[in-house]
């Protein structure tokens, strides 16, 4: 169990840049990796790969359905295709991912930048708040949402070593550092970022840093919150959730995604079947996003540390009432 790391000041790396650099760095080791792009390599981070490995960079133009299904064909010849585009355009090709990747059992990876309100000024049309729900519902699809640049680099390697279809979220905005250089990542394993006994806050992606902040706010009020980084949304770490339920008896989930179908739903499904306890859901409340800076949007849509802290107090109150 690791001690609560101090939040490191904003690094220069967004998650997408961290992914792009990691992928380029791993390309000589994973020689059968090819990268598929739909004219947004500059936005998804794979411009690094395009520069370092131009012969393995495949341009598909602005045509995501063809790109997604073609990845199935590339995988069928023994290559490891990495489909890269914005999360919202992955939604456009969900059915191709379903039939030609997951159903066909292909070892193909989808890496989606620009998920959630973190997209910011591009507005509601560009902010995918449904992607984890859609991809989580596809049998055999692993869904990952790393929290910071360190974890993104580790997850990129883990994704390439893993055999099977993976959907991974990166992120557009400058990312806060949550983890130290000794951080470990394993697909399917959550990890306790900060221990606590009163409530468990389960978060993924950009919400992990906010959850750590929330724990500090709660500590000032005498509330001892446990923070779990649940970077793998599917398959979710049920054993860890059950342990946390036994230890804390109350949960908050936090995600930059619709509260329907994503991390919160995955946690609720697991606990409902094992150790039911109060859960409060922090996320976008089944509405579309809007333009604004990511932090402004997080405030307006209820995703910031104070929102998480308030939700934690509600969950604890429900736990006490039930006793």
């Amino acid at each position, binding site marked *: 169990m690791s001690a609560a790391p101090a939040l490191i000041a904003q690094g220069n790396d967004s998650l997408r840049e961290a992914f792009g650099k990691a992928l380029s760095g791993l390309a000589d080791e994973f020689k059968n990796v*090819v990268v598929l792009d739909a004219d947004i390599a500059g936005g998804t981070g794979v411009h690094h790969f395009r520069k370092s490995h131009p*012969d*393995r960079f*495949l341009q*598909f*133009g602005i*045509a995501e*359905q*063809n*790109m*997604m*299904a*073609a*990845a*199935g*064909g*590339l*995988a*069928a*010849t*023994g*290559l490891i*295709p990495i489909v890269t585009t914005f999360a919202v355009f992955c939604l456009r090709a969900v*059915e*191709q991912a379903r*039939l*030609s990747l997951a*159903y*066909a*059992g292909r070892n193909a990876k989808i890496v989606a930048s620009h998920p959630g309100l973190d997209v910011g000024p591009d507005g509601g049309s560009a902010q995918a708040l449904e992607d984890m729900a859609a991809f989580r519902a596809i049998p055999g699809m692993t869904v990952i949402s790393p929290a910071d640049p360190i974890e993104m680099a580790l997850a990129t390697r883990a994704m390439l070593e893993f055999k099977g279809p993976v959907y991974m979220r990166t992120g557009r905005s400058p990312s806060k550092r949550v983890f130290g250089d000794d951080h470990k990542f394993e697909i399917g394993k959550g990890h306790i970022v900060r221990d606590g006994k009163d409530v468990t806050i389960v978060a993924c992606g950009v919400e992990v840093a906010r959850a750590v902040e929330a724990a500090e706010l709660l500590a000032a009020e005498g509330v001892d919150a446990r923070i779990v980084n649940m970077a793998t949304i599917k398959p979710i770490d049920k054993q860890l959730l059950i342990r946390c339920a036994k230890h804390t008896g109350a949960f908050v989930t936090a995600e930059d995604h619709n509260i329907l179908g994503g991390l919160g739903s995955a946690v609720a499904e697991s606990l409902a079947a094992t150790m039911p306890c109060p859960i409060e859901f922090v996320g976008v409340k089944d509405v579309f996003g809007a333009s604004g800076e990511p932090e402004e949007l997080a405030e307006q849509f209820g995703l910031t540390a104070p929102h998480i802290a308030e939700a934690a107090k509600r969950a604890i109150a429900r736990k006490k009432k039930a006793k």
Partner: protein
Amino acid sequence: MAQAIPFDRRAPVQCKQPLKALPPNLVNDIAASAAFVRQHAIASIYHAGSGHPGGAMSCADILACLYGAELNFWPDAVDDPHRDRFVLSKGHAAPALYAVGAQYGFCNKREALSLRKLNSKFQGHPHVLDMPWVETSTGSLGQGFSVALGMAMGLKIQKSQARVYTLLGDGELQEGEVWEAAMCAAHHQLDNLCAIIDYNKMQSDDRNDAIMRLEPLAAKFRAFDWAVAEIDGHDIPEILGALRRASSTHGRPSLLIANTVKGKGVPYMENIPTWHGSVKLTQAQAEEALAALGATREQITEYLA
């Protein structure tokens, strides 16, 4: 089981005179295989109580030419990285694919009659995890074309000489993904890709031109920079010749627009769109169809047992 006779890919192709190079019995052998494909597909759809006969009949000759001669693909080469690939993008013609597979030893003729049944590998649409030789899972129109494109691209990257063939329905061309793939294949100069359109002019509810007009079809693909040939999709020497010419095309993907008859070989089905759909065949209808397709009394009894 029929013996497939492949062309030697390394031999120079005599453009416009490919027929002289055909082994004497090849056309007859393929015609017999095509007849078997139609009969077996009718029988399996009869046993299933549902299925799409119209489009299975229209593509039987094309499939027989591919598996009987063109594809460098054998039952013992299903894992060979340098095998030719065939993708049935119009996945609803699965009964015809299973039948041609059975004819050339990729699956069992009797087992393939379990089409669409619980626990059968012969699902209503082909699934690659059930049987690797179908190469990918299809059934959602447009996707098989893109998967075939991806295979062609992957083979080129790995410097394989193998070719990729895919069969599309005409109604399938209304999917936007098809035109994404058409643009992409030409841009990447995938001359190891050959798409064939089973152009029977009909789709689920009506004629193509009543649902959503496709013409001028050849001009559209030519404008996308494909090497286009228009052929009679029931003329075996013509199909074989067109496939040969396609394999010697450089710098561009090839398209064969195969003019076909929906329900070909079964008079009461021919050119009637309602036989596209998933239909239930009565025993009398199945018997009539099999007889029209040249099955003997004994064969009909065996098929329908």
